[in-house]
């Protein structure tokens, strides 16, 4: 099933879009695996997702760690550490 990917801040800039629909293979079951797979999609993706330690993620708008499952997820967001306030 297709997942709606969202990218924010410099991740968005480097990927080249803030939003895309993706359909990862069945063996991609966690956020970490999804990031690995996304990084193969384009040079922009590879650049944006190179430094895994600087990436954070949310699955269906809930903040998660990289080992979080993505089974059934409709929306996954990848972004840098937040800097609000």
């Amino acid at each position, binding site marked *: 099933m297709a997942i709606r990917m969202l990218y*924010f*801040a410099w991740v968005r800039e480097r990927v080249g879009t803030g939003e895309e629909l993706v359909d990862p293979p069945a063996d991609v079951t966690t956020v970490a695996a999804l990031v690995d797979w996304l990084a193969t999609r384009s040079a922009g993706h590879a650049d944006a997702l190179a430094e895994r330690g600087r990436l954070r993620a*949310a699955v269906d*708008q809930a903040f998660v760690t990289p080992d979080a499952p993505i089974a059934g997820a409709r929306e996954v967001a990848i972004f*840098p*550490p*937040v*800097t*609000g*306030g």
Partner: protein
Amino acid sequence: MIRILVAPAPIDLTAEMALVEQASGAGAVATFTGLVRADAGAAGDVDVLELEHYPGATEAALTELAQEATTRWSLGAVTIVHRVGPMRPGERIVFVAAAAPHRGAALDACAYLIDRLKTDAPFWKREIRGESAAWVEARDADAAAADRWR
């Protein structure tokens, strides 16, 4: 009362304070206001600060944060207003308020809200100086401040 507002309009402090002060049991109101700093250090003065956020998730995160504060302290009101989009030095980025019957709860809840907001709400700052723009890096001190409350 829990009031969450994420919007590009300038923050109307007078109106926000009136809402908080009118909440029942508000004998003490503590607030925190974050301003765009004019003097941004070695890289020179900031012309414009841009705030990007994750629509939907931002409001949900702030609502959850406000609800957590009301379970920790007896509060008559919690307000979190965060501006997004472009803004100028001296303008308000964020306004947080907590009202309670007594001052200890209001002061502690206010500190809690801004500390946790800094690490738990999906906002990203970009500083624009002349022709160049740079994303603000997250500060370890913010994570440490938020950890105090866990």
